[in-house]
């Protein structure tokens, strides 16, 4: 008996020591990556948090510690409230439209023969630099000689022509552009989920007399729920951080007017600007911190709301 015990313990302890050895070796391999990560991600993040408590214009200016002043000022700042509101509008309204379109495309594509080709086509805007797309949208939506208004006139819908980039419609046009870009991205993600669903579920549903809507709500949605939840998180991040397309919309190559700022554009303009730098680095950092907090809170909420038991199939 004793013998057996010793023979049993020996390999266990050997295994353990081998395991610790692996851990030690792992530390060696992880250390460089960890050092780089600490240096270029964690340290600047802590730096940003610190700057958000100061008034600082950058090198040559002495940083003055002001506590939570920058955050209090944001609260009272109309321009910030505007940027915040537009970011939420993009997130909610834009998100709603993106997912409605993505689902429609997904359901249509599921039964199409050339679905790979069409999926590639709808994904295409994602591989073109957003700045180029933003300029193209400027040409498309130009008030006179613009392609959209020109088309409307051609088909006898002159009454429907609008100043698409005018103050009333500018931000809606930006959202339309972003929906156009990102729908393809989410179609691709949702398709990956839908493609996993075995065809016999749909066949069975059809035999049971399920309508298209019922197949969607009873088969597609429950069986892609995990993919959907990831997609929702991705949208939250994309909607809040999108910068280039909004910045370049209208194609001027200069800071856009404050009436179309979202949070990242606001951060850029007040912290760096381009030709007339504002260099309010404290305020810019405070907005960046608010953005990170917003992303964190919304991801937490999204995960919470979308938490379901995963259906195994």
């Amino acid at each position, binding site marked *: 008996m004793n013998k057996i015990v010793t023979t049993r313990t020996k390999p266990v302890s050997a295994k353990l020591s081998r395991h610790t050895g692996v851990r030690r070796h792992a530390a060696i391999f992880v250390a460089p990556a960890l050092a780089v990560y600490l240096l270029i991600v964690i340290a600047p993040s802590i730096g940003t948090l610190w700057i958000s408590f100061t008034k600082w214009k950058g090198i040559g*200016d002495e940083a003055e510690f002001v506590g939570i002043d920058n955050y209090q000022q944001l609260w009272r700042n109309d321009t910030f409230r505007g940027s915040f509101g537009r970011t939420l509008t993009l997130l909610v309204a834009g998100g709603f439209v993106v997912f409605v379109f993505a689902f429609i495309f997904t359901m249509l594509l599921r039964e199409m023969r050339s679905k790979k080709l069409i999926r590639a086509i709808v994904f295409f805007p994602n591989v073109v630099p957003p700045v180029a797309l933003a300029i193209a949208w400027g040409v498309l939506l*130009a*008030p006179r*000689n613009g392609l959209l208004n020109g088309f409307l006139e051609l088909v006898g819908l002159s009454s429907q022509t609008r100043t698409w980039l*005018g103050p009333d419609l500018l931000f809606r046009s930006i959202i339309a552009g972003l929906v156009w870009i990102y729908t393809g991205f989410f179609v691709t993600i949702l398709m990956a989920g839908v493609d996993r669903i075995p065809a016999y579920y749909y066949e069975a549903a059809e035999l049971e007399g399920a309508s298209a809507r019922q197949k969607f709500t009873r088969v597609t949605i429950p069986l892609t729920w995990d993919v959907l939840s990831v997609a929702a998180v991705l949208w939250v991040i994309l909607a809040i951080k999108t910068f280039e397309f909004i910045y370049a919309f209208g194609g001027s190559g200069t800071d856009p007017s*404050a009436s179309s700022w979202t949070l990242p554009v606001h951060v850029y303009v007040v912290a760096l600007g381009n030709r*007339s730098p504002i260099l309010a680095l404290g305020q810019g950092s405070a907005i960046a911190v608010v953005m990170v907090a917003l992303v964190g809170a919304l991801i937490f909420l999204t995960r919470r709301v979308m938490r379901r038991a995963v259906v195994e199939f």
Partner: protein
Amino acid sequence: MRKNKRKSVRGPLWRFLAVLLAAALVAAACGDDSSSTTPDTTTTAADSSDTTTTAADSSDTATEAPAPAPEPATIRYFSMWNEGEPQQQVLQASIDAFEAETGHEVDVLWGGREILTSVRAALSAGDAVDLVDLDAEPLVGALVNTGETQSLAGILDMTIPGEDVTVGDVIPSAFLDVYAIDGEPHLIPHSVVSSGIHYDGSRLAELGIDPPSTWDEFIAAAVAAGDNAVQADGLIDFYNAYWLYWLIVRHGGPGSFHAAASDVTGESWRSAPMRRAVADLVKLVDSGALAAGYDGSSYPLAQQQWAAGDGTFMVNGTWLASETSSYASPGFEYRLLSFPTVDGGSESAELYQIGWVVPNAAQAPDAAQQFIAYALGRDRLAGIADIAKNITPRSDIGVPPEIQDAADIFASEPEVHRIYDGVQGDFPEYWATVFLPLDDQLFFGQISGDEFIDQIASATADFWANQ
């Protein structure tokens, strides 16, 4: 035995960490070395002897007697131009000739309009920045107002190589005074820009309209000129701002816009000249003379349409001729009106300069100043007029016909004011977050003149209360 065993386990880890630490120390030493010795190495690119004295000298010599033969130095030059642009070609020619004649080396970064980003990065890394070339307002806002540039008063007494004149003889003091600190210039211009209302001279003659000179005449001419008479790229808010800023300066005089923007109570906005300026802008908006869809026109669509003959007037900087010449309809005759005047108002001219500053962090400030004096030489600076189609600060350099009207504005040595009356340069956050959004709403007809006055007065007070 146990000891040995532990050693054998720890050995590779310690060795590895030791190597890492050593590598880190070497890297840190190199980093220190490169940042602290950059001036040395750069200064000595041409001559490796006596490096440290050169670097030390360059910061101290300002007060010493001028050295008979200065050590060849490397000037680190940050420029707003992109390679291939006309101004870049003109400056490159000056650089080449300067290097050949003086033995100094010019290490130039053609960084485009966002050159300040590169300047900031270099300054924060402790690298040498000897010369920066950019339009004055952002340059002044970012470097001069923050006390990071040095006085260039010494340049005024330098003789321009190849001529019998000094820099002070050829650059009007009115230009230098605009950005002077304690009476000493910190920015030396190589190009001078202004703004006004551009039109096609031949088209106006065809329409039988005389060039207007007062605001009321201008409105009447715009209404008479037919459809799309006044073109505007409404998506560029700082172009829209030309109208109201000019009207404020006309009604209230130079400095009145600056004073209203910096009035912490905001009440200056309610003054009579402000109300008159706003009412005049509303007259233009209500006249129907602005091109259809001007509020949603993206740059450079409207200015291209204007040059192609769709529209008559356009407010813009004097660079409009060079920006639009490739779209101009046959026979297009570039003309410029000084911004229309108002009864009893100011007639001052806008002066916008593009030029050089020498930061305090310069490692070769003497060579940098020498370059400025060299580049201001008549033959070398003439390229700014002939090739880049801009006005130069030297009155003895002629300009091409398309910008003759603009040059004439300065010929009479008028009272001058800064572009946007200095509001953009001195209060960039107020400009971007308070003034421009409300100005757009007024210019697009979304709010009335009274609403504008009420809103900007309270927004101005709020803005300063928050600072």
